[in-house]
């Protein structure tokens, strides 16, 4: 549905995105994840036909974004970073204008707009001037604008910015429900958003794609280690060589004493090996006073930070 190949955009000396490549299948919800300034918005602007790319190709629904601009624009709904709303227009008038611009036939406009307003929960403000609405409402008016003409592809640039937690939940549910019928690309720098809504993730940093995988895949790829954190009454210093002899343990470190005077020991195990009982037995046999044992798997947040930091160190080596 969406194919992006080697997409590059430079502004003079500055490279905003560098050979970005990914694809989205029909009905998928793709999370476009990256810190601020990573190039998310630039990529989305190019996909929407608003910005021309410097080099590289992108196609939506089989149409090239440079050659078949009008067809591409007809098949997308786009919510830019700043919702493109007219402050001096009432919500309903604005949505009708936007829907008609997107070629919704005149006799279907009212129904399409009413539907979009219901989905985005803004029917109660339909006669108010957009300029008088709060940021959250304006954001949802922008979202309603993107979905009103029922486009096959939705490009949403940070759709939940400025919403309160309840509205965020609603919009995420809405986006999830849009998947299947619609192909959605959604950008964000908030991880839980991706976890809550997306089936696949593209992580982008400093203009480059650093990972593209399913949610589970990314988590799995990062889980080279399973981490065990033990709380012990006695100093486990002498245990370290022994631990390192156990097959499957890649590292063991002793942490600082906590306020209660307890020692912590962090043991990292290779992927796929469950050494909880081995480690526990060893500690008990050595009379270390085992107070607790917890297993931590790296969260997506860790994975995200890790991806970006490894990318950084890799770049420094060049």
């Amino acid at each position, binding site marked *: 549905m969406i194919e992006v190949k080697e997409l590059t955009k430079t502004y003079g000396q500055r490279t905003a995105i560098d050979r970005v490549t990914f694809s989205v299948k029909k009905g998928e919800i793709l999370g476009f994840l990256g810190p601020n300034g990573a190039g998310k918005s630039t990529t989305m602007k190019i996909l*929407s*036909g*608003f910005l021309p790319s410097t080099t590289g190709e992108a196609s939506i629904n089989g149409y090239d974004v440079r050659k078949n601009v*009008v*067809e591409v*624009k*007809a098949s*997308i709904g*786009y919510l*830019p*970073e*700043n*919702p*493109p*709303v*007219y*402050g*001096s*227009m009432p919500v309903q008038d604005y949505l009708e*204008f*936007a829907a*008609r*611009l*997107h*070629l919704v036939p005149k006799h279907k406009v009212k129904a399409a707009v009413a539907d979009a307003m219901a989905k985005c929960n803004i029917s109660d403000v339909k006669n108010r001037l957009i300029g008088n609405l709060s940021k959250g409402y304006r954001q949802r008016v922008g979202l309603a*604008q993107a979905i009103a003409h029922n486009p096959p592809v939705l490009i949403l640039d940070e759709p939940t910015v400025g919403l309160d937690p309840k509205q965020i939940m609603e919009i995420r549910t809405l986006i999830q429900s849009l998947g299947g019928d619609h192909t959605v690309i959604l950008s964000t720098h908030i991880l839980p958003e991706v976890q809550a809504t997306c089936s696949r993730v593209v992580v982008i940093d400093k203009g480059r794609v650093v990972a593209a995988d399913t949610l589970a895949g990314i988590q799995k790829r990062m889980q080279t280690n399973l981490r065990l954190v033990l709380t012990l009454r006695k100093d486990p210093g002498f245990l370290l060589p022994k631990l390192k002899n156990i097959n499957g343990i890649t590292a063991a470190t002793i942490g600082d004493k906590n306020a209660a005077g307890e020692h912590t020991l962090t043991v990292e195990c290779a992927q796929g090996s469950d050494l909880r009982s081995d480690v526990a037995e060893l500690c008990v046999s050595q009379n270390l006073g085992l107070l607790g044992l917890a297993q931590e798997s790296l969260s997506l947040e860790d994975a995200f930070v890790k991806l970006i930091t490894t990318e950084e160190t890799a770049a420094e080596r060049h």
Partner: protein
Amino acid sequence: MNSTLLIARKDLRSYFTSPIAYIIVAIFLLLVGWMFVNLFSFFVQSNSQYASLNMGSKPTLSENVLRPLFGNMNVILLFIAPFITMRLLAEERKDHTVELLLTAPLKPISIVMGKFLAGFGLLLVIVGATLVYPLILQFIGKPDWGVIFGCYLGMIFICATYVAIGLFWSSRTENQVVAAVLTFGTLLFFWLISWAAHRAGPVWSDVLNHLSLIGHFSNFAQGIVDTTDVVYYLSFTGFALFATNLSVEAS
């Protein structure tokens, strides 16, 4: 075509949902009314002088009221047209709403023409409101409707040219004041361009005279429709719209 009208209607409406249109219409009509009253009372005075003293040529409504009135109207338009056109594209850019237009399935020319029609429409409404003065003359005298028709036709062409130039500058910046100042400067320059004609050589003086925005109005003001003048205004308008289209496509 459809989206052109859609955009034109949206922009025309937005003029009237803000105080801008009302203020501009009010000020324009006030100034033109003031001029009409003075020109007309002066005409009445010189007419009675002519009747009692039998001196000079007989003043006429066309020569002493209509022509100077339209000349003055042109000057006022020169000042107010930039205020009407400055927002057309600059505001959309500043508010990021231009992204809605530029990601909708339409060609940039539809946006340009829609915007042009909105500004042009508002100017026509303003100029159309002045029809009340020829109608007043009709009640008290015998104005030459050929001259009136010529003047209004000329005004339509001049308004189109002003709006097209203003729209071009509005497409070049997101700052409305900058757009207005550049528009005013451009209009005034082309208004005064013939001032240099007497010092230029024979060929250049023709060229400069021909480029003058106001020079082409004088035929219309006598009720004469010359294709040269029509072509001048239309090509000026067309060129400015073409340049605007390039500018919108490039953004």
